[in-house]
């Protein structure tokens, strides 16, 4: 045994490395395949699935027994090929490989080579690269290796977004994404440089305590750098457009996993600070609240369902940040309970959001594939035409609203517990953030509920609002199967949270090793929750069967919907999603700044008019773009320097000489 152990521990690491290689290579064979013909795509999906299995098995083993890690020389300045899989990494690895494997299967039905001969191969190549990059950066224990993985991920994501670069809007969102991600990367450059100077090495380890100045610098740079990737509220500008325009399984990967890499960065960096100042936790917590509330508020006001889902990613990132903030508070107070609840909640929510947001994007993609529109107000009545997609979306919606008995509830419960406990703290004003956080989270939950009732209702219930929606048909099995798997996971985690708790404990320990261990099973009523959840489901099933029996006894008649005496009801008379959200949008108009154009209905016989309301991304369209234009104009003013006159050019040289001579 003693001899065997290091052996298979080593194997664990290499298994994950192999998985990364397989994922990266998955798209390559297809490049030589014919433009038509499905060999390439099937090979790609197969490779990806195999790789994913390796990766998941490896990560699972790593959770079971901590691994030794790999540390090989890597002859680049400051580089070592050092990887290790601790509790935090393992969770992320499993999620990465799960979602990307399901996505690649989904791609078989959603992005058929026969339907996209021009860009199918490119897309699969970059898709594999995204996966590989993410897995690499999550394993990396060397900042250079981390940067490599990070940038591979970022660039591959841009390229897979840009496969449809023949459409202008795609080019625009791609540009915004690229600029944002570059800003993030540069912040990370600076952060790692500071880290190196502070610790004297390129590992993710505070070999010597980091001074307060450097610590603050690292915190701020991390918040900007990783926050941009994660899409924390003021820095979310790239997110809605990119998620809306990318192919849906790429959106699922982006929203489900890619933005979490920013969160991973938070976890990894903050784990270096055993005694963070109190204001760190409070700052992160407040950021989380802002991001959550505004994110969901923006979501409600959208009429493009993929954009709407994208804004919900902003919201959920906010919830995760709240959990992280609680954990930071706990760590600076040395309160292991808060740490366990906060970080456990954040971790679990990372995982859950990956699952249900992946599910939602995949089912949204299924709708898009069937109807070719992203306008919510053109849909409706799809529940009859695409029952399975509708069901999947419903599961995802209930889960994302954090309602029992699905997985979203568990993680939000943990965060709630953390917030309530921190609100119950006696010390000074620390409890204040918690006391504000809990109602904020409640507000977020209620708004999310409103939003998803609206979008589910408008898309799948009622009558079709447009011609093409009427002719929609259910998608093929490649599209449905991955959704089924994800829905299953949502139920599993929601009903048996006790199973995942130990995994979370390991992550918590990896994050704050100095604190005493507090198993979540003890801290949180997970057993109760699964009991209640199970009973709830049981009751519903029983009730349903009774109801059905009752109906069988007294057969129900059918008729049209009661129209309150209106003469000619039609599909267009249905309550549209925008009207559904109108009041709420009004409540938040101070932040959303909706653009409304009302028809002129004055006078006795008003003309036919149309009412439209639209909400842009305030930060991007009202602040950043004008600022950028201003800057460009300012820069253009300098152009006269290069005016083409030789005399001027020589004059510059002369002046330089004079200045330098005076400097001497």
């Amino acid at each position: 045994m003693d001899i065997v152990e290091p052996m298979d521990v080593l194997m664990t690491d290499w298994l994950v490395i192999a998985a990364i290689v397989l994922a990266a290579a998955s798209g390559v064979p297809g490049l030589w395949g014919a433009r038509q013909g499905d060999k390439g795509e099937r090979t790609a999906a197969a490779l990806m699935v195999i790789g994913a299995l390796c990766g998941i098995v490896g990560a699972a083993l790593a959770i079971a027994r901590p691994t030794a890690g790999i540390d090989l020389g890597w002859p680049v300045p400051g580089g070592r090929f050092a990887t290790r899989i601790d509790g935090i990494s393992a969770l992320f690895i499993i999620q990465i490989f799960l979602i990307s494997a399901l996505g690649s299967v989904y791609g078989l039905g959603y992005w058929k080579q026969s339907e996209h001969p021009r860009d199918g191969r490119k897309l699969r190549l970059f898709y594999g690269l995204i996966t590989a990059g993410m897995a690499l950066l999550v394993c990396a224990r060397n900042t250079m290796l981390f940067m490599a993985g990070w940038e591979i991920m970022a660039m591959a994501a841009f390229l897979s977004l840009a496969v449809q670069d023949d459409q202008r809007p795609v080019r625009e969102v791609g540009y915004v994404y690229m600029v944002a991600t570059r800003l993030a990367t540069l912040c990370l450059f600076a952060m790692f440089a500071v880290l190196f100077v502070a610790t004297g090495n390129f590992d993710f380890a505070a070999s010597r305590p980091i001074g307060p100045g450097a610590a603050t610098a690292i915190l701020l740079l991390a918040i900007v750098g990783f926050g941009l990737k994660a899409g924390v509220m003021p820095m979310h500008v790239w997110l809605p457009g990119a998620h809306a325009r990318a192919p849906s399984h790429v959106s699922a990967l982006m929203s489900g996993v890619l933005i979490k890499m920013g969160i991973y960065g938070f976890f990894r960096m903050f784990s270096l600070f055993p005694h963070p100042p109190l204001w760190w936790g409070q700052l992160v917590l407040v950021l989380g609240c802002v991001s959550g509330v505004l994110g969901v508020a923006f979501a409600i006001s959208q009429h493009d369902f993929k954009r709407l889902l994208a804004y919900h990613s902003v919201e959920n990132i906010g919830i995760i940040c709240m959990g992280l903030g609680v954990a930071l508070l706990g760590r600076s107070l040395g309160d292991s309970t808060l740490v366990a609840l906060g970080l456990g909640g954040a971790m679990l929510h990372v995982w859950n959001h990956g699952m249900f947001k992946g599910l939602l994007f995949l089912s949204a993609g299924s709708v898009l594939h069937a109807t070719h529109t992203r306008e919510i107000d053109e849909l409706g009545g799809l529940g009859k035409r695409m029952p399975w997609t509708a069901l999947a979306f419903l599961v995802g919606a209930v889960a994302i609203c954090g309602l029992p008995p699905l997985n979203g509830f568990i993680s939000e419960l943990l965060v709630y517990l953390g917030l309530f406990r921190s609100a119950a703290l006696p010390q000074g004003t620390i409890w204040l953030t918690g006391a504000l956080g809990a109602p904020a989270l409640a507000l977020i939950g209620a708004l999310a509920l409103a939003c998803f009732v609206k979008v589910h209702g408008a898309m799948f219930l009622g009558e079709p609002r447009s011609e093409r929606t009427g002719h929609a048909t259910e998608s093929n099995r490649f599209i449905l199967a991955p959704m089924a798997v994800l829905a299953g996971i949502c139920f599993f985690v929601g009903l048996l949270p006790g199973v995942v708790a130990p995994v979370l404990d390991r992550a918590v320990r990896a994050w704050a090793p100095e604190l005493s261990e507090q198993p979540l099973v003890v801290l949180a009523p997970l057993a109760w929750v699964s009991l209640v959840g199970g009973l709830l489901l049981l009751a519903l099933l029983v009730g349903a069967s009774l109801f059905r029996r009752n109906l069988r006894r007294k057969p129900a008649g059918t008729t049209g919907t009661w129209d309150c005496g209106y003469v000619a009801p039609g599909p267009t008379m249905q309550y549209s999603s925008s009207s559904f959200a109108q009041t709420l949008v009004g409540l938040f108009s101070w932040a959303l700044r909706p653009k409304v154009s009302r028809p002129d209905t004055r006078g006795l016989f008003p003309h036919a008019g149309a009412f439209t309301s639209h909400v842009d991304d305030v930060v991007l369209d009202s602040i950043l773009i004008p600022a950028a234009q201003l800057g460009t104009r300012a820069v253009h003013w300098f152009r006269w320097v290069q005016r083409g006159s030789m005399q001027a050019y020589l004059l510059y040289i002369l002046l330089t000489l004079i200045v330098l001579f005076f400097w001497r």
Partner: protein
Amino acid sequence: MHNLVAPLLVVVLLFNLFLLGTSRLQAVINASAAQGVILGILTLCVHEGFGTWMVLITIVTIFVKGVLIPGMLLRAIRDAAIRREIEPFIGFLPCLLLGALGTGASLIFARTLPLAKEHVGSLLVPAAMATVWTGFLVLTTRRKAINQVVGYLVMENGIYIMGLTLLHAMPFMVEMGVLLDLFVAIFVMGIILNHIRREFSSLDTAHLSALKE
């Protein structure tokens, strides 16, 4: 013979001012040529005793600076049929004043630099500075391409004067290299001048500002 150095340098400086002040291209070119000849003589004066290669250098210098290049330039303006410089970017008078100021400044500047004992009190360094400065002025203020070539020549003259301060130190081939490169540079410029004339039917640099932001 060493006592000739100072007066000759004064003449060089006067030529500088003349170059800045005058507008007729021919006069400008001739002035630069004369300056070249004086430099040739200076070489002899600065260097005690006639070495064989000293004489050689003097002859080559005088030939290139005083005959060959001016000849080419004169031919160029004859072909291009241009006689005088149009008003420079800043008028002639300001040019003159700037030149005079520069000369004064270079005298002061040379003072800040510690001189080797054999050069103490010699005008060589300030004269070199002043001439380079003049060259720059011509380059930056004149409109005609020819005039800029002349400016470049004057600058090279200044550098040459600087070179005289360490005639002993400089091995032979570098001297030759200087002249050679000077020659080739001007030669290529001459070719380009001809091209310019053919392409734009004038030597006015106003035509040469198509490439810009």
